[in-house]
């Protein structure tokens, strides 16, 4: 009887494939593009999931596929290897790779300021960056710690660097004095692990004089030049999708949790809601002359100067060379 069940399953699969035109690898009249987020599914990328699930990309004539992301998977590599048309990168990462010759262009700047924090337990007596001198500090690898290094350099602080993994357990167990944390992620993880905000001392990098915008949408310049209409449509649809996500937080969190469960990741509604709310804070600047998705010229120049000063890059392109837009192409 086993063969009968197998036949039935095959038939069922065929039926689903027919009844599910979205699974058709080449939907007629839609341009297929690929997007690689920076990290595993979480509300940090809620807008893109919403854009796909709510058909916002489809309305803009796009068939967006998400590439798997997470530890060990580099969106920069995916872009350079042509696996991804678009990717979410930090501004610092993009500038570093542009400096090394990868022709990346910024399509939109989503997160307008750094969300990074240095967190310490109040009981350690650390209040300022200067207090961290000689203490053990958890630091992420890669480009994520660029702003922190810049800050330590500026303050002439020498710390005992401890590579920080993807959890905050080392900090929770008291293995390090200071931990790196994203406001929207690790900070809240500490809270829902039973640490009270009052027990923590927090320093926002953004409050120390440099805004360091983070998540932005990037593509190879060639991609943008070759497919300007699709690129423009992708940026517009992404911004629209984010707006929808912020307007419908409950639905959005449902979508995010679904993605997380698919990826067999711990899916915590409260945590994802916190993350979505913080993304809203980070993507909407208080100044009214900044549109969502805009790369602020002053912020760009400040980051470029800072990285040059830290000798992380030799030079950085002009704002107009770095920031791609359909209008600029016409120029």
């Amino acid at each position, binding site marked *: 009887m086993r063969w009968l069940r197998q036949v039935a399953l095959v038939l069922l699969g065929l039926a689903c494939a027919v009844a599910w035109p979205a699974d058709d690898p080449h939907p007629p009249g839609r341009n297929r593009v690929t997007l690689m987020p920076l990290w595993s599914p979480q509300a940090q990328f809620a807008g893109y999931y919403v854009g796909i699930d709510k058909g916002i990309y489809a309305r803009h004539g796009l068939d967006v596929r998400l590439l798997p992301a997470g530890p060990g998977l580099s969106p920069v590599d995916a872009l350079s290897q042509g696996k991804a048309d678009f990717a979410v990168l930090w501004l610092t990462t993009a500038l570093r790779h542009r400096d090394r010759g990868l022709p990346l262009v910024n399509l939109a700047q989503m997160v307008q300021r750094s969300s990074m924090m240095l967190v310490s337990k109040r009981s350690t007596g650390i209040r300022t960056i200067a207090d961290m001198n000689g203490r053990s500090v958890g630091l992420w690898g890669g480009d994520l710690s660029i702003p922190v290094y810049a800050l330590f350099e500026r303050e002439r602080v020498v710390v005992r660097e401890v590579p920080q993994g993807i*959890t905050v357990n*080392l900090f929770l167990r008291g293995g390090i004095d200071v931990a790196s944390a994203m406001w929207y992620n690790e900070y809240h993880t500490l809270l829902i692990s039973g640490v009270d905000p009052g027990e923590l001392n927090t320093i926002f990098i953004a409050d120390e004089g440099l805004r360091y915008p983070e998540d932005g949408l990037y593509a190879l310049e060639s991609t943008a030049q070759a497919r300007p209409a699709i690129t423009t449509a992708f940026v517009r649809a992404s911004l629209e999708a984010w707006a929808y996500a912020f307007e419908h937080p409950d639905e959005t969190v449902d979508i995010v949790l679904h993605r997380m469960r698919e990826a067999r990741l711990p899916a915590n509604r409260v945590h994802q809601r916190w993350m979505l709310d913080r993304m809203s804070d980070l993507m909407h600047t208080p100044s009214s002359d900044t549109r969502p998705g805009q790369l602020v010229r002053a912020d760009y120049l400040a980051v470029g100067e800072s990285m040059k000063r830290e000798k992380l890059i030799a030079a950085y392109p002009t704002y107009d060379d770095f920031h791609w837009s359909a209008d600029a192409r016409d120029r």
Partner: protein
Amino acid sequence: MRVTGSIAARLVLVILLSGAVIYCFTLAYIFYESRAVLQREVETNSRNLALSLVNLVDARLTAVAKVTEALARTVEVVEPGEAELLALIRATVASNAEIRGSAVAYEPFAFDARRKYFAPYYFKDTGGLALSRLEDTYLATPYVHSDWYQIPRELQQHEWSEPYYDEGGGHVLTTTCSVPFYDTRNGRRELRGVVTADLSLDDLTAVIGSVKILEHGYASLLSRNGMILAHPVSELIMNDTFFSIAEARKDPAMRELGRRMVRGESGFVRYRAIAGFDSYMYYAPIPHTGWTLAVLFPRDELLAGTVHLLARTALLGLAGLVLLAFAVINVVRSMTGPLRRLSKAADELAQGNFELALPPARYHDEVGALTASFESMRTSLKDYIRDLTETTAAKERIQSELKVATDIQASLLPRVFPAFPERSEFDIFASMDPAKEVGGDFYDFFFLDDNNLCFLIADVADKGVPAALYMMVAKTLLKSEGQRLREPDAMLTSVNRILAADNERCMFATVFCAILDVSTGQLRYANAGHNPPVILDSNGLRFLAMKAELMLGPVPGTEYHTARLRLQAGDTIFLYTDGVTEAKDPRERLYGEQALREALAKVAGQDPATIIHSIRDDLRRHAAGAPQSDDVTMLALKFGGARPGGKVGAA
């Protein structure tokens, strides 16, 4: 049945209300007391259950920890080569059923100066043991940055990792025991690496997750971060922490409870379960890992038995109260039934039916006593009524006899008017209206001889039969003595002597007595204490001036004296008793002499009958229906004029 209307209703109400209140208080007391007892028992039971589960988990952890520790010490001491090391790890995994996998991970360049990373890992795979090299599998970030390596390394102590899903072995909830080992040669203590052993938690969490306390109670396991490791709601496991649930529920107290848990405290608390029911929770730490085990006893289900018992007791009580109500109604009916029958009999008794037999009393109780009293009252009343009937009959006989006496008395007074139709010299009229059947007043007139008319008016003190009898005697004596003695003073003196002689009862009479010589108008008169008569003559109206003398009867030997007066033609003398002037109106005001004078003045010159009728009418008007209190007697004589040739002062 109005509440206040019936004894039965009031009794039932009071007894039932009191009973219900007492019953409710008792029930409430039992409820609170049994709940307290239950709570103490639950605390003991939940502690025992929690500790038994804690021991179950801890025993497993202890076993793995010992093996890991032993492996670490061996590696430390033996400093094995690669082949030896692999054999050692392989044997460790193979010989310990609890251990899913084990690794010996070295610090960079610690095992081999040419190799940066070295971490062989044996694990149980489908179909035997498999070897994996973690320096190769950890591509993105080296294993030295993993929690299982980094935390024991930084803390320099053995550590149980936060549980995680081991995807390599098929999504198994795993925790890793990590023990650092050192280079201890030449008295140094330099970290060389970390030995690990993986423990699958699936069967432990399955045991804990399947604990069922009553209907909905359960056991739960939390990690040091409050992460839910075992719970009947599977979506929560490895997704939610106790604190994220507290945040979702906006429950700071729950967060505080969670902080006590992860601090390693234990306790017994009231807690609103994630499933929404009220519960008692006991929580205790797992000593090895600092995890928390909690057991929840659903409060409602615990109390369900008690509540059920109380409900049944309440129902029984209700039935008892209904029974009590019936009993009370019955008893009260048996008491009030005779009372009602008695009341009905009393009503009939009141109607006058004294022959009625009272309902017999069944018991010698208060009702029986009341019935006896009623019976005695009935007999007394019956006797009394019989006596009364007899008395009334006797009284009626006396009344009828009195009526006869009245008639006789009336017949004694000259009642035919005109009394002397053949005599034109005078006109006389008199009337006597007795206050009772027989009066004490009387009047009389009679000729002593052809010219001398004796007339008198008298008032015997007291009224009724004695007065009438006295009056008879006085009247008879006055007439006989008048005819014998022919002078007023002698008449009165003589009659007084006779009356006073044998007057034990001290009765007396006032008498005005006059003798008119109708031929001359000469009037001789004497007064024994009577009101002075009124003279109506040409000068008008006046009371006859006279010397007042003692009344007849009380004092023996009283002497009376005669006065004289000459009447002219047309003069009228009006005699009356005090019944006239003392006649009362309804407001007890007396008629009085003034009213009499005015009334007489109006009829001056009229004939005596008219005068007397007029005064009687006036008196009736004055009385205006008020009962007559005294005999009213009047006598009027109008002198027509002296006969020619008549002698003055005859007799």
